[in-house]
């Protein structure tokens, strides 16, 4: 386990959620949740089904507008900004329900992920100069490399709809990585991977930190993975914060065991 300090640079964390609350009609899915992710950190967000993890993700990334509370990213208030605007700041996420561009090949999916790097004016679109061409070439090379990293090289030119469930999960992560996130947020990335694959995946994640991404926020039910990679864990239950701490503390927390882990953890 990497023993990084919670906030390496002191000062402002990369991502900070304050008092987040989300209500749908009569249901309060998330209630007054606050936590932060510092630079270089891998943070796990766990909790029983329906605890509000995905809803938090959606609020953090602008897909939902929080009923109450604020979100700060890199010190700026991004509450209720548009998803793409938040993504442009370097906060990239994946989805719980498999979301890929099914009719594009694996390579095309990942290449598309490089969108932000290649943004250009309309003029440059219609009359591309050398700079644009170079950016395009680089994007292609980088895309191939990312596909490789995620272990999908074999499937490079297969349309995504031909992939099995587990492969799709990996592709999603690849697309997110292609967008060069500062903070990468993954919603159950290992769902659909078997125990062994999940462990390998965890190893891959750890290698990303500091090189490809600064920090990670992961929602995951695979405890081996979570405990193996996370520096710190935040636990939600019924939309509220239940606990926060290092993996060992969480494992030993009886409330967490009761609400989330079940007797296997005992």
């Amino acid at each position, binding site marked *: 386990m990497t023993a990084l300090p919670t906030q390496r640079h002191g000062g402002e964390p990369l991502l900070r959620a304050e008092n987040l609350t989300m209500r749908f009609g009569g249901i309060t899915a998330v209630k007054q949740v606050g936590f932060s992710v510092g630079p270089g950190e891998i943070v796990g967000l766990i909790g*029983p*089904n329906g605890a509000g993890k995905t809803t938090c993700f959606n609020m953090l990334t602008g897909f939902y507008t929080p009923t109450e509370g604020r979100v700060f990213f890199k010190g700026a208030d991004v509450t209720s900004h548009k998803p793409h605007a938040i993504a442009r700041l370097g906060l990239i996420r994946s989805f719980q329900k*498999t979301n890929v561009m099914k009719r594009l090949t694996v390579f095309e999916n990942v290449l598309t992920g490089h969108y932000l790097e290649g943004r250009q004016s309309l003029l440059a679109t219609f009359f591309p100069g050398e700079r644009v061409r170079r950016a395009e070439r680089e994007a292609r090379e980088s895309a191939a490399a990312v596909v490789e990293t995620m272990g999908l090289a074999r499937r490079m030119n297969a349309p995504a709809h031909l992939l099995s469930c587990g492969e799709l999960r990996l592709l999603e992560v690849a697309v997110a990585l292609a967008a060069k996130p500062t903070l990468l947020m993954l919603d*159950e990335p290992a769902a*659909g991977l*078997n125990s062994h*694959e999940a462990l390998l995946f965890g190893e891959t994640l750890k290698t990303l930190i500091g090189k490809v991404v600064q920090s990670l926020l992961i929602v995951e*039910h695979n405890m081996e993975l979570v405990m193996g990679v996370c520096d710190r864990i935040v636990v939600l239950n019924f939309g509220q914060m239940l606990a926060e701490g290092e993996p060992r503390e969480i494992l030993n927390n009886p409330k967490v065991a009761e609400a989330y*882990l079940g007797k296997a953890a005992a």
Partner: protein
Amino acid sequence: MSTITMDAPDRTATAGDPVLRVQDLHVAYGSTAALHGISLDVHAGETVALIGANGAGKSTTLRAISGLLKARSGSIDWNGKPIANRPPEEIVAAGIAHCPEERHVWPGMTVEENIALGAYLCRSKDEVRTRMGMAFHRFPRLRERARQMAGTLSGGEQQMLAIARALMSEPRLLMLDEPSLGLSPRMAEEVFEVVRAINAHGVTVLLVEQNIHNALAVASRAYVVQTGRITTARPSAELRDDPELLKAYLGG
């Protein structure tokens, strides 16, 4: 193809004729083959697991059995009768329920409606009501959300719903494709409890599961699938005790 030898099916099989017998099943998606001759037997009252790496063909096998996919060749027999290439609705009617991967709940219907429709083939309203009561009993969370649109449930809630719905047809054979996917450890445990309980009531279970530990804990036997073929069939205990062997199979 691999260094691992193919075990003879009868070595691990329980006595008597199998209720489900799949022989030399070939399945393809369009022009790309996915299964290259799968054979497996499931006996009455057993819980059998299919395990294997990503993309090995586990889900494809279940889809072929439940009629969602056509078999190129090979046979599938249910209680001695061939059911290969019959439409799914006939296969459900024959007593095989398939809870598919990725949940597939009906997003625009309420939780209640989703569950009720699981018993589509049951024409007695009272009977459906009893079964619904049972479903809500098994998954209290769903009772709380009975009137919510299924599409707005959390991932895990949808997974519970999908399982509850599959059970509504009161199948003789229940095929679960990654039932613990997206469930919290505690919830996963509860689901496996349910599986055990159902099994104890005489329902045969064919299980695809990524959480090998859990799978081997409930199943009495397991088949390992590798790139569209069965490469091994062993009692669960043997596999459980030999993590190295497992790793070799599942490494992908």
